[in-house]
């Protein structure tokens, strides 16, 4: 069963991180721990990947993320942030790499001379106009700004955590956030009261 885990309170002591022992078990080769980590985080990671990726291969991103996590779990250092933040950091890394290989795939498809349209959110039934607008607005952001914005504003990580997991100075996180908000607001306008 998938159970929702409450977000960590910012600045809570590391020893309260429920993921830390699980990642430690995984690091020592216990693959059941991977299942536990998956059950805890896969649904949210899948949503994150769907918002972040400029194409519809969220499942692939999540799969790659968990496989990588199982390979590098032994190197996880709880002193550098929560397990959840680390997990999203790995996902962000996968997204970055995926973007590059996606560019290659697009070129290949172009060479095949075929107009393959990749399904976007607007193809998904049951979505309102606003969702499409938001999706397109996110799409126009650079990868770095989009991921930073989503990690802070949707996933609820602190700027310090994001700076840690992305390996960029905190000033960069602030700048990206500021520009992301400005660009999103310029495209979306302020939302009409409902």
């Amino acid at each position, binding site marked *: 069963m998938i159970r929702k885990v409450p977000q960590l309170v910012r600045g809570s002591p590391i020893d309260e991180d429920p993921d830390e022992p699980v990642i430690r078990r995984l690091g020592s080769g216990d693959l059941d721990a*991977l*299942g536990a980590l998956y059950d805890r985080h896969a649904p949210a990671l899948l*949503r994150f990947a769907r918002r972040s990726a400029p194409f519809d291969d969220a499942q692939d991103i*999540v799969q790659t993320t*968990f496989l990588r996590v199982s390979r590098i779990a032994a190197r996880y250092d709880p002193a550098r942030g929560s397990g959840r933040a680390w997990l999203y950091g790995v996902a962000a890394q996968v997204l970055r790499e995926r973007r590059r290989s996606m560019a290659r795939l697009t070129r290949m498809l172009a060479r095949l001379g075929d107009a393959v349209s*990749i399904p976007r959110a607007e193809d998904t039934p049951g979505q309102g106009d606003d969702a499409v607008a938001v999706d397109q607005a996110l799409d126009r952001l650079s990868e770095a700004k989009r991921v930073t914005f989503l990690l802070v504003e949707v996933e609820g990580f602190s*700027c310090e955590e994001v700076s840690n997991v992305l390996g960029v100075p905190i000033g960069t996180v602030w700048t990206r956030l500021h520009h992301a908000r400005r660009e999103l607001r310029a495209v979306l306008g302020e939302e009409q009261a409902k």
Partner: protein
Amino acid sequence: MSERCPRIWEVEAIRDGRLRGESRLAHERHRESCEDCRQEAQALAALAERVGRMPTGATDDLGLRRLRQCVLERADAEASGRKRHTRRRIALLGIAAALFAALLIVTTAWIRNAREAPIARVDLVVVATGEPGTRWTRTTESSVERFRLNDGVLSLRVERPAGARRVLVEVPDGEIEDLGTTFRVEVRGGKTARVGVQQGIVRVRLRDGVAIDLKEGESWTREPAQPVLSVEHNAVSTPVEVASAAPSVSQIHSGTGVSRVDAGTAAPAASGPAVGSPEEDAAYLRILELLRAGRRDAAREAARVYLAAYPAGFRRAEVQRVAEDTPR
């Protein structure tokens, strides 16, 4: 536009944790009497809320479970691969001296017997035979036994224990990876014309999008016609499958003469229930439920029903295992 409050930037600074302590308290007091700053705070929160509210498509339970199984299986395979590797390393260290001597002998034999003789490496045996006029080379690298086939027909017999070096045949338009088998590759005019497998499995990856596994008795032949790409989307199709739809360029022929295209690369079947439909999901779920309930016979039967209804189904490979009742 009227002049906005000069302290409006502080709203974002507080949100991002740039402004703390006394400065933050001072701003919060200011906000009580400043409409601009209050509105700005609301706008930033609304933006975050709006993006967070964006539907991300149904994350259905089935999809999550399928993905989970996939993740765990692959992680398991990788982990056992690593363990095997480590064990072998230790073993190799133990017999280093003997191995060194053996390698010397083998290398000498390899040089002397050139291409036609079996090359007995400690862990890998590859017998390669080129038909007259065939242009090809062979190099041994630490992790790959590499063949380059420029033109002609090359036959290989590979005995490859798990964890041994990979065997790759590079063709002008791609590569063919051997997974322990006997097979034959034909290259004509700079393009792979045919790959036939007598035993085992090979993986064919060509630059024009062909990516297939060929099993015993199967062959792949390039069709002379231009590729016809018919890509159809349905609810569960993913770009990965879109990309691999390209192999419709060619067909796999099984030994029985029945031609088919591998699952995952197939367009939805023309007749019968649509692949990827809710009915297919339901049929698949039924199998899982029976398995979970420990009713293996019933699950096997349900698997056969699934295979009959969805010969090109998305879970064909998985279901096949259930139908044949082989442990993974």
